[in-house]
């Protein structure tokens, strides 16, 4: 693994109880001192196919030491940068909002609604980002939709001053629907550069996860191959929007209904601000979401719950394959 190919994997759900040696060889362990405190232990994993990555568990080691609300994302991402990462991959347990999803399925998000309210989303900030108020999102989303082909729009920021949003043609298309516009504005209200956040995920890495996840689905016998990995029964190719809530309390049914109205497909607590911090350091980022249960108020759709080490092992296995594919792409240029 040279520096141009360095991949860091952050483990989410059940990573703290995962026996890493079932999946790869642990050849080195490091704790990185950062301006934001010490990192968790980073372990260098090498697979049978000699894929090497750095791995860290977000929520602790051995037991659930900290809830998503208290993960030190700044120390984690800074440490990834210190280790030379070019790409961060992560897995997250999520609750399904979209009724078509099922517990045990895997999806790859392409957009985020950031509903966190207490987290510091920048290496240079001292305080959490201003709040997102959903009706404000709707109003400003409608404003974007009405302006249609405008190439430059101004929005007052909640924290003061104005954002001038220059929309590229692709972003204009992205802003045509009220829901997707609301997502774009979400980022504006948080005071982030929309050119960075309109597409928060690395597309090459997303595809690598989709391919690796598709292979896992076939290998595990969960889905029959109908058309290669473009299996119509699999949701892994679907565009997915992840809403990140604050926690640690779980969401109410009314909150989930609101998120669904604004276009969210899955809900979790960990992706933000990790994805924004990675963008600040210029690192690629992509995530694998494992549907562990249905969100509040939707348990009647599928009441099962899928937590535990097997979920973490599934996540790491898929991400190691995705890392290998991504590194291969880098070598091929």
């Amino acid at each position: 693994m040279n520096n141009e190919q360095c991949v860091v994997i952050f483990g989410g759900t059940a990573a703290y109880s995962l026996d890493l040696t079932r999946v790869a060889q642990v050849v080195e362990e490091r704790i990185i001192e950062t301006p934001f405190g010490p990192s968790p232990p980073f372990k260098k994993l090498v697979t049978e196919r000699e894929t090497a990555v750095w791995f860290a568990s977000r929520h602790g080691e051995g037991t659930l030491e900290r809830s998503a609300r208290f993960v030190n994302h700044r120390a984690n991402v800074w440490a990834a940068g210190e280790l030379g990462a070019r790409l961060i991959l992560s897995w997250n347990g999520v609750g399904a909002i979209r009724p078509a999803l099922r517990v045990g399925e895997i999806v790859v998000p392409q957009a985020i609604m950031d509903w966190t309210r207490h987290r510091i989303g920048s290496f240079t900030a001292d305080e959490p980002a201003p709040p997102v108020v959903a009706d404000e999102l709707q109003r400003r989303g409608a404003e974007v939709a009405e302006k249609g082909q405008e190439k430059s729009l101004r929005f007052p920021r909640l924290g003061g001053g104005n954002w001038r949003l220059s929309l590229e043609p692709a972003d204009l298309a992205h802003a045509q629907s009220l829901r997707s516009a609301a997502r774009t504005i979400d980022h504006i209200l948080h005071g982030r550069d929309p050119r960075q956040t309109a597409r928060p995920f690395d597309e090459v890495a997303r595809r690598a996860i989709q391919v690796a996840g598709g292979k896992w689905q076939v290998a595990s016998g969960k889905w029959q191959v109908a058309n290669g990995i473009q299996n119509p029964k699999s949701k892994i190719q679907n565009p997915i929007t992840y809403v990140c809530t604050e926690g640690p309390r779980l969401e109410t049914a009314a909150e989930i209904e609101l998120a669904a109205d604004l276009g969210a497909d899955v809900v979790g607590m960990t992706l933000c601000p990790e994805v924004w911090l990675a963008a600040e350091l210029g690192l690629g980022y992509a995530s694998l979401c494992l549907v562990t249960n249905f969100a509040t108020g939707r348990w009647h759709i599928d009441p099962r719950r899928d937590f535990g080490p097997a979920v973490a092992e599934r996540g790491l296995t898929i991400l190691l394959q995705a890392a290998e594919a991504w590194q291969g792409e880098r070598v091929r240029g």
Partner: protein
Amino acid sequence: MMPVVAVLDNPSKIQNPKSKIATPFGPVGYDRLALAGGEVAILVAAVHVSRFTFHTPIANHQLPIPTDPRALAYAAKALGAERVIALARDTGVERPSVPDDFIEFTTGRPTTFFTAMGAGYVQQDPPFCPELRQALLAAGAEAAGPLLILDELPPAAGRDGWAARSINLITTVTQPEGALCRELELCFAVLVAPPEMVIQSFLAAVLENLPAERGCTCGETMALARRSGRLAADWRGWVGQD
């Protein structure tokens, strides 16, 4: 005598509470109210200071001085109450109303007692104690839809947008107090009431409709963490768990 119910009065009319209880998050003032069905502790969740002027053009504006929500939940538990009613006095309602759910977008408020351990993932289904909520309804309050909790009340136009979503109750209080009470295994429900409502007789009716022993599962909220030994037997040890 331990109170049957603790009421988080917000904003409270009690300017000089007769009693005070110390908590790790600051003192909480309260008055005891003896009713036929038992005793109620009225905790001062916030008071308005009068004739406060600040730099914006809004002169003589009354600003609420809030109590730390952790202190309120801790005080209710320490006083021995097992049930908590958060009273939101709101000029927007004509009759006492009991929401069936909530949406919270508050910021800058402490949301959990478990700041450095993997606890606090409290399910919100149901979001309020069904037994306590039923007692509030039986006492004469109206059933209402979800309660929206924001840092600041929106202007009229903003309210219209939420009304289109069938959200008609908007307040700045009751969360995260509710989540904190749930972490301490207390029953929790919200009553949104007109500001001038005298609550004594209403509370007496609530007590009449409450079973003596809790029949809900609120007292088992942290049972998994307790049984696994991750939480101490004494709830006082849960606070600020590292």
